[in-house]
């Protein structure tokens, strides 16, 4: 197996846009911070405004990243469990799970998010304790479920592509169905599942900004606030482009990493 060298050119290619874009952002902000935002505005209204609003925008952007990661982690664990369930011997369970997966996959993110946001309370009072359920948690709840549906499909597809002999071998040494899945099948499937998994993560990272429509203070919300606060039409495109480049830089890393891993998988099997 080829280990990845630190000087591997393909690794550098993955982070090249990100280094350039976030580097430029840092330079822009520092220029304004050190030289004074008003000074920068006097030279270029666009650069000055972008520079001054960078911290708020960055805070929102980090929230988007956090929401994606949290939803991704919970959704993946949930998805593996549901994926296992979809392989069940029970026809009834398979049908129910199939229905749930179809429902979750075929509902627009925005619709599902509205449903969760409106239909669930702000906090749960169980026993004597109060568990808060803020909008951010609702977003994570909503996306975790959707991600789990996609992951379940990936798991099902990968397991179905595993030779039946593996299952049979597991049975002959007396393992339970769940143990076979956990100890034999899943580890074999993992490398094959990583590229589609990263695709899902990249997809949901692009969907997360819809949270701004239920009042989450993310990058898109702050961009809107900045634009209305500045009240200058010529700043609308720069602000949205600014935020777009950040999303691009981050998602690009996922895209190229996926491609890199896909190539490695191909090399291993060919």
């Amino acid at each position, binding site marked *: 197996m080829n280990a990845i060298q630190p000087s591997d050119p393909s690794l550098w290619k993955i982070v090249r846009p990100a280094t350039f874009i976030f580097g430029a952002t840092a330079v822009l902000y520092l220029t304004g911070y050190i030289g004074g935002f008003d000074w920068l505005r006097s030279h270029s209204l666009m650069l000055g405004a972008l520079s*001054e*609003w960078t*911290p*708020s925008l960055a*805070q929102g952007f980090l929230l988007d990243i956090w929401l994606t990661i949290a939803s991704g982690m919970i959704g993946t664990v949930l998805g593996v469990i549901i994926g296992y369930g979809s392989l069940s011997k029970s026809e009834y369970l398979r049908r129910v799970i199939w229905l749930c997966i179809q429902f979750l996959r075929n509902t627009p993110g925005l619709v599902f998010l509205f449903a969760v946001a*409106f239909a*669930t*309370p*702000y*906090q749960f*009072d169980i026993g004597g304790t*109060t568990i808060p359920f*803020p*909008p951010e948690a609702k977003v994570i709840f909503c996306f975790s479920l959707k991600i789990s549906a996609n992951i379940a499909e990936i798991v099902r597809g990968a397991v179905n592509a595993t030779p039946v002999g593996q299952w049979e071998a597991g049975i002959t040494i007396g393992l339970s169905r769940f143990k076979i899945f956990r100890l034999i099948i899943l580890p074999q499937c993992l490398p094959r599942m990583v590229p589609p998994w990263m695709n899902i993560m990249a997809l949901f990272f692009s969907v997360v900004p819809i949270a701004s*429509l*239920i*009042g989450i*203070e993310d990058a898109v919300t*702050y961009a*809107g*606030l*900045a*634009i*209305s*606060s500045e*009240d*200058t*039409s010529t700043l*609308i495109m720069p602000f949205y482009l600014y935020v777009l480049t950040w999303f691009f830089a981050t998602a690009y890393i996922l895209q190229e990493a996926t491609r890199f891993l896909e190539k490695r998988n191909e090399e291993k099997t060919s």
Partner: protein
Amino acid sequence: MLSAVAVLGMTSVAPAQADKLADIKKAGVVKFGVKADIKPWAYVDSAGKHIGFEIDMAQHVAGKLGVKADFTTVTSANRIQYLQQGKIDVILATLSDTPKRRKIIKMVHPNYFGDATNVLAPKGTKLKTWADLKDSVLCGVQGSFYNKPFAKEYNAEVKAFKGPPEAIAALKQGQCQAFLFSDQILRIQQETEASLKDYVLPFEPRDSDLWALGVNHGDKDASLAKLLSGIVKDLHKSGKLLEMAKPHGLAGNPYLRAHANK
């Protein structure tokens, strides 16, 4: 029917508390739902801090309650829902006191600001009287209580956006003939925003309405409502509310002036 659904909604999502006021005092913080895009009533600076006339008012109220003020950004579309779900304790967000809303939430009286409905249109607009709105295309904000009645009355199409900045951006593009919104907010923004200098309010305002603080119905919020009522009454009586309005350029509001020092 409406109240039945409203009650159903409320009882299934309202948090179980003995007394909202006691909880607020215990937590040491009162959570206000405020706007973030209505200059100069409630907006944010580049650091994301809430500022404006309603913010000043909220700080005063919190001070009188002996607690700190916490601000959650709300929109016309989600402020009532947030209050019902318990995410905020009080709505202080350009909330018009209408009979339909009174069924769902408790409006704190006395009211604190006077308003009406109007439209904003470009200078050369062909709209001269309200009747000209027939079959027109209007921009609006989601959650405004006059959207549906006006759409029905004038057979107009109301394109509802997330907030006033988005609606005004659409108006500037020519996506609609006029922006249907609060008379006071349109007036002040047209006077203060440089980009709106070629825009006018072609009609006389109609359907006056008053703004109020909003809290939940029921015993849990009763003591809170009573206390807030007293604070607002005092704000008018002492003339302090009018004082607060001055630095934001809002001291010209007829309702404020009529009720100050009374």
